[in-house]
């Protein structure tokens, strides 16, 4: 790696993040459980005769309050979701907070209340935590880390190695809303936008999906790097490719307009309450129907499938029948004038 300093691109969830992990972090953390960089580690404790899923995530979002949520809600949902997509029922969460001197106690309580609400509604217990305070200026208001433990249920798969050509790809709703709402909430661009973050705990939806079909191959929640990142992660180093159809991706007018104004590609923008599901093509319609009945899956769509051609690549069929590649996103999404 040629960088001598960490840049913001390293945290953006795309190519540079992956490079940082693969080329530097894994050098020092060679545990085989990390090799495929799963959302959660599946830990086998022989004495328990059960598989436990264990995950962790840190939240540094700014602003800490945004349409549709706050850093606390995000912290709990994010960890629930990482467990859920591994087929685990989320059970216990830890909450470690680093707080900037001068942070308003009122705001602090708002965040705690939000975390408590989501945890309770999701049947998850916050059972341990830590609190540190740093000098003014040494952190931006509040940073939160949540780690979570869940019990893996007896579902067949899901895992990357189960994916076969012909499998269908479903997204549970409109992608990118979280990142769009954050950008608007920042106020840097002085736009007023009727968009809310899609931040939500997806365990209920995932459980419904897994209970409906034994043909679920793989699931992931598209966070940093968006749908483009997830699809590329799925095909990376594998003997299959993916083709998705532009006209099948669920969108709204506002989302499209916002992307047009700034030159953003919706495929690269983060969600925090969506699931990408790879499913046996014979089960796809059934799973789609069931997803659409769930409040978080109303705009679910089958957007494409796994293909034999173009191994390791993701292809987009545009509205006009032409095709082009979707690459792993690089760096942060920046608004363009050009």
């Amino acid at each position: 790696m040629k960088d001598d300093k960490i840049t913001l691109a390293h945290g953006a969830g795309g190519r540079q993040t992956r490079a940082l992990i693969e080329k530097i972090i894994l050098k020092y953390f060679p545990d085989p459980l990390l090799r495929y960089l799963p959302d959660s580690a599946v830990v086998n404790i022989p004495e328990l005769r059960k598989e436990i899923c264990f995950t962790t995530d840190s939240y540094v979002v700014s602003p800490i309050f945004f349409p549709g949520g706050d850093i606390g809600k995000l912290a709990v949902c994010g960890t629930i979701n990482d467990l859920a997509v591994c087929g685990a029922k989320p059970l216990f969460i830890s909450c470690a907070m680093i707080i900037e001197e001068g942070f308003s106690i009122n705001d602090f309580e708002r965040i705690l209340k939000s975390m408590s609400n989501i945890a309770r509604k999701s049947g998850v217990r916050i059972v341990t935590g830590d609190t540190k305070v740093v000098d003014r200026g040494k952190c931006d208001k509040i940073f939160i880390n949540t780690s979570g433990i869940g019990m893996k249920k007896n579902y067949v798969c899901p895992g990357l190695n189960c994916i076969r050509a012909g499998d269908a790809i479903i997204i549970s709703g409109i992608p990118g809303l979280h990142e769009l709402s954050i950008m608007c909430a920042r106020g840097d661009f002085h736009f007023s936008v009727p968009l809310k973050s899609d931040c939500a705990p997806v365990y209920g939806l995932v459980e419904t999906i897994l209970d409906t079909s034994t043909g679920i191959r793989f699931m992931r929640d598209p966070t940093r790097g968006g749908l483009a990142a997830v699809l590329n992660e799925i095909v990376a180093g594998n003997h299959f490719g993916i083709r998705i159809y532009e006209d099948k991706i669920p969108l709204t007018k506002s989302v499209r307009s916002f992307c047009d104004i700034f030159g953003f590609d919706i495929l690269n923008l983060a969600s925090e309450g969506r699931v990408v599901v790879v499913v046996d093509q014979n089960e796809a319609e059934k799973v789609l129907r069931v997803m659409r009945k769930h409040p978080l899956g109303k705009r679910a769509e089958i957007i494409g499938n796994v293909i034999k051609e173009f191994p390791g690549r993701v292809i987009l069929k545009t509205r006009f029948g032409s095709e082009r590649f979707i690459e792993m996103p690089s760096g942060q999404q920046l608004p363009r004038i050009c």
Partner: protein
Amino acid sequence: MKHIDRFSDPENARILLSMIHSEARGIKKVVNLMEVCGTHTMAISRFGLRGLLPENIKLISGPGCPVCVSPNSFIDKAIAISKLNDVRIATFGDMYRVPSANSSLEKEHSRGAIIDIVYSPLDALEIARNKTREKIVFLGVGFETTAPLVASVIKYAKKYKINNFAVLSGHKLIPPAMEALVKDTHHSIGGFICPGHVSVVIGARPYEIFPKNYGIPCVISGFEPCDILQSILLLLEMITGKRAISVKIQYSRCVTRNGNITAQKMMDDVFDVVDSEWRGIGIIPSSGLAIKKQYAEYNAEHVMNVETKISHDKKGCICGDVLKGLKTPRNCVFFAKKCTPQYPMGPCMVSSEGTCAAYYAYERR
């Protein structure tokens, strides 16, 4: 605006494509059509248009990305200014990751420089209004679409005495660059797809020299797939002789022959036309904009004292040839190997509108 969607209608696109194929059958050679607008570069790649065209019709990209053609010296100056105490750089997102020989604004940001990314120069002025103890330097990058806006903002700064605001002008003019390309006897440009929004400001007149003096047809194009396809069709019809060679306005819903006179006057009021260095091409006479003397206190060249060393493009980088349309990214030995958006060797890869970035994002085999 519902009918905007009809400019992306696949049915219309299919028909335009079949007409293009039909017209191209009457052309017994390879025709290179050059677009000189980064947004066109991106649109062509994003819509996958290149692969749909007949074999003998090639779309090549010219120096239409203002970020790509900003010389190292401009970026180095911006970087040097960012290192000064109490200075904030305000910039469009496009410039953030562009490398000069040794650094970039993104790298400097990680080293402590304060860089604000803005959507509008008005937002940069607003920052200056609010942060009175700091000096805000806005990086003025862009062609004739953006220059009138920056000129307006400089005038506002003067009117409202916002004296902690300055602009580092890197603005350039497109028609002189187009002419420099066709003056090169090695060029193979068969027609120009002219930039849509630059033309909203400057109108169609500045392109009239191309059919007149060089026999090269021009079409001012919109940005939707059907706009671009219709423009290609019009160019081919001029090449086959179906229509007389001239400047045609396809983007008639926004572009007029005379352009936006108010915006042109705004540019004239604030900027002088000067010779300017285009990365990869060299100095093109009368192709850049420098802030006039009466606005000197808002001119960062004037008020910020920084020394910059001359720095050169990385050895082996052929961005210059790519910008001139002489080579494609696939001709470059570094493309997608040593040179990637993550580790760009030159501006064509890092700028979101750069030809190499477009190929990398959408057209890598």
